[in-house]
């Protein structure tokens, strides 16, 4: 065991343990560290955007290259802060950037997202229902029936006739399998994040394990 002599490692370990102390019982150290994290994280997002986009746009694109048309989107972006004004003649201006973003966003949904998430998915669903291999045939039929039955589960326009109610019921079963798979994968993912922190605490801080195999 070789304890770290770095102040930064000790401070980081202390803050990590403060977060984990909140799992056992809510306490002031946990809340304090959590609030500090939220503040630094939000600040980092602002700094990253200023460094990587705002500053170069102003310094290079506008000041150096003379692309003055970029002032239009700059003002569109700045109008969003008009919502904080109590003056009715000004605060409506915050609708302009929203309209701009929603207009473009809606166009992208129709031109790109619909094709990827609907058209391509339909093409991929309707696989050959008759093949030489019985297992492939079963899988293909199950895929087609599964997708249709889950889609029918979300059909609320009118009540399904009684003989057809078995279809959305089967869709529920398929969805439950999907949610179970989601849980199983979430366990792998979240435990690996915890493992990463434990590897830091046991390796970098306490020196009990090697951090790299």
């Amino acid at each position, binding site marked *: 065991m070789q304890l770290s002599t770095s102040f930064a490692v000790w401070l980081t370990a202390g803050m990590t343990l403060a977060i984990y102390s909140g799992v056992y019982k809510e306490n002031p150290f946990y809340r304090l560290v959590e609030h500090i994290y939220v503040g630094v994280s939000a600040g980092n997002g602002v700094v990253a955007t200023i460094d990587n986009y705002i500053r170069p746009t102003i310094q290079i*694109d506008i000041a150096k290259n003379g692309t003055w048309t970029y002032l239009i989107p700059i003002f569109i972006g700045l109008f969003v802060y008009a919502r904080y004004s109590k003056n009715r003649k000004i605060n409506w201006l915050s609708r302009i950037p929203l309209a701009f973003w929603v207009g473009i966003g809606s166009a992208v949904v129709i031109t790109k997202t619909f094709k990827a998430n609907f058209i391509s998915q339909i093409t991929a669903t309707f696989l050959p229902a008759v093949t030489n291999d019985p297992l492939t045939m079963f899988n293909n039929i199950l895929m087609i029936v599964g997708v249709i039955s889950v889609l029918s589960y979300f059909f609320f326009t009118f009540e399904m006739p009684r003989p057809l109610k078995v279809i959305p019921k089967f869709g529920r079963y398929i969805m439950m399998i999907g949610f179970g798979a989601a849980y199983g994968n979430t366990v792998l993912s979240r435990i690996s*994040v915890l493992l990463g922190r434990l590897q830091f605490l046991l390796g970098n801080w306490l020196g009990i394990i090697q951090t790299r195999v």
Partner: protein
Amino acid sequence: MSFWHKLNQMDSRIIYTALLLVLIGALIFPMGLPINIGTSSQAAYDIFNHFKAGDILYVSFDYDAAGATDIQSSVEACIRLVFKNGGRVAAGALWPIGAQQAEYLFRDMLKEFPDLVEGVDYLNLGYKPGGQMYIEKAMDNIAEACANVDNAGRNLSQSPIMKDLKTLKDAAAVICGNHGSPGASEWVPMYATAYAVPNKIPFVVCASAVNATINAPYVQSGQITVYLNGIRAGAEMEILTGQLGTAVAGMDAQSLSHLLVLALMVLGNISYFMVKRENKAKKEA
């Protein structure tokens, strides 16, 4: 109160302690369970092991420090193969912290490949806001999408690699390290469906396991060429590339913790049914 009632109402902190003990025990005393290589990892290895010298790989670091444990190992392994074959790497990020993850990765790569030159063999373009609209703009003009600067604030025209990477279409392959949104769900419509699939360009997603279920339809439809799922894929890629790291080191702990979760599921259900039986017997008595 019967034993089963007490078990049913067991304090959660006992469960938390059990999880910690299992994980710490497995990290200190690893068992060395064999890790079988899956078809996805093998496919990713085959793609990047045959990467042509001079070709450019674009990597989008769409994850943060929390996702790095799941994702960084597989991304690193793929990039290692590209550098080994003389390929070049350009890194972007749709998440603010992703740019820093790229910095860490390139810093580690320089220890293995000290002859790599920034701006020539690799470049960190940095975080760019806009999510899917960044991808859309980068399909047309990467320099404009990046506001003409890289992560270090240098003009992109100073980097020779950008002469061969005018748009995302110039990349020989794209990797998306995906921990949430924006990520694979933005890359699929804007890049994979629009360009990669019709032009047979590999689009690889290295994602944290929590995204596996929601991305599964894209894998089956071929919109995602290869899907590397979480730390398990990271461990497999580490084995394939011969550079064992934290992913392999953590797999024994993963195995034991999963067994603990399964045991708790079984125990929870047994206690549920026993309590139900006891309550029914009390009612009838």
